[in-house]
């Protein structure tokens, strides 16, 4: 496949890079990435992946755009309020880069649909606002030998790690979701909008590194940053036996749908549908 003149111009800054070049750019154009969540993290992730020319982007989000999202979910604009997030995101991406095919999933991932959805992708990036989805994505990717990156933000802090088959995962750091009510969500505690950009761009970078096969991924490591002190820490994580898929009942061998924490359900009644945090 030869590049068109427009593609040579559009991707020239990638082609210039040692370690990327035309070969790397072709890998990106042929790649399939699933972005879980079109919110605070999903916005920069999908915008940067689309700009980079990742050819096929699946985007999962069941929610519609709310006014309170716009402080950080930069793929959505004021005129999108009330529209499905995946449709709003798809339109921005089509405008940004016509080379990118968007596959929208206007639905919540659950134990029934997740294995089927992720099976068509090379890499999964997770940027949702709730623990049940984080654990579901983690377990489903491990069961499917699917590499993925997870990210989370709250207040002024963020954390992210990348998993490839056999490496440590989210469950090696957090064995179970926290007890309902013990960890506040973004809609309770707040989040500085720009934090979503800081972490989301790290997640997009990890995804691109994986697709290009360059550099050292955040594998068996978790990155934390605190924007107030502007300190970053990278902590080694050992893969634990119970976090790997296998027959033993101490390992991941099935998908679990955790209950939504009770506080979130209360919040939902008070402030509207959840999913409005990240």
């Amino acid at each position, binding site marked *: 496949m030869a590049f068109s003149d427009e593609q*040579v111009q559009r991707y*020239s800054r990638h*082609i*210039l890079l040692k370690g990327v070049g035309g070969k790397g750019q072709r890998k990106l154009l042929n790649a399939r990435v699933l972005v879980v969540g079109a919110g605070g993290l999903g916005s920069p992730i999908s915008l940067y992946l689309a700009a980079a020319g990742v050819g096929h982007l699946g985007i999962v989000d069941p929610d519609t755009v709310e006014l309170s999202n716009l402080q950080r979910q930069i793929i959505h604009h004021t005129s999108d309020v009330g529209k499905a997030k995946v449709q709003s995101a798809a339109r921005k991406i089509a405008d940004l880069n016509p080379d990118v095919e968007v596959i929208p999933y206007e639905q919540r991932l659950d134990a029934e649909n997740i294995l089927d959805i992720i099976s068509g992708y090379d890499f999964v990036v997770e940027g949702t606002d709730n623990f049940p989805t984080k654990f579901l994505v983690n377990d489903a990717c491990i069961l499917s030998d699917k590499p993925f990156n997870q990210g989370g933000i709250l207040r002024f802090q963020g954390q992210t790690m990348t998993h490839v088959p056999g490496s440590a995962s989210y469950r090696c750091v957090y064995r179970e979701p926290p007890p309902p009510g013990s960890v506040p969500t973004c809609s309770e505690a707040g989040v500085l909008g720009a934090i979503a950009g800081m972490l989301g761009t790290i997640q997009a970078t990890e995804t691109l590194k994986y697709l290009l096969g360059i550099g050292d991924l955040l594998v068996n490591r978790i990155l934390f940053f605190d924007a107030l002190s502007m300190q970053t820490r990278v902590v080694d994580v050992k893969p634990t036996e119970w976090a790997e898929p296998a027959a033993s009942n101490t390992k991941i061998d099935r998908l679990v749908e955790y209950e939504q924490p009770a506080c979130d359900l209360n919040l939902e009644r008070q402030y509207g549908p959840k999913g409005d945090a990240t």
Partner: protein
Amino acid sequence: MSERLVIPQEIIAAIAEQAVAEAPNEACGYLRGLEGRVHGRMELTNVDASPEHFTLDPQEQFAALKEARRYGEQLLAVYHSHPETPARMSDEDIRLANDPKTVYVIHSLADGRTRGFRVDRTRSVVEVPIEIVPAAPETTNPETTKEEKAMADTPIDRDLDLSGEVCPYTFVKSKLALEELDPGQVLRVTVDNSESASNVPRSLSLEGHDIVSLEQARGKWLITVRNADA
């Protein structure tokens, strides 16, 4: 250890002669040698043809580098003349002094002096004293290397004419074309501006490819490069 540059009298005389011949414009060139001792001089064209500043011709720079290598030597210094001002670094000289690893030698027709300077990345200037010695040390005659014999009849696997293209697209397109070739195959790129003639070989070389030759003909530059991908 205080650094110094040892230059034979006859080379200083030759620089002075070139400076007079090219006045009122600045004259320029390279000094090659080893371990702070200059063994030879290479006259270059000041493409600016200006009395106040100079720019080396990229094709000649490349040829000079190859000549120094042929002698098993390095380019120790860039020299230029100051037709009307003393032998010291002008603001323009300091601004354009991008290589902290080279000595900048200035020969002044105004005060007759020849002085050397080094400029670091912070643009601070340190003088490098010049010691003038009576005669040039013996250097062995350059021999045609195996490499050069090989390049004389290098078959070209692909010819890419990038006339009309500018940086960075000249390099981008050269890189894309090289990726299509097998390791060891040879690409010849034609460019028509000196910026590309300077940038394309340098960038390809940084990517690890072998620049076989750079030739100039009728306002165009022919860059011959061998794909060195493992």
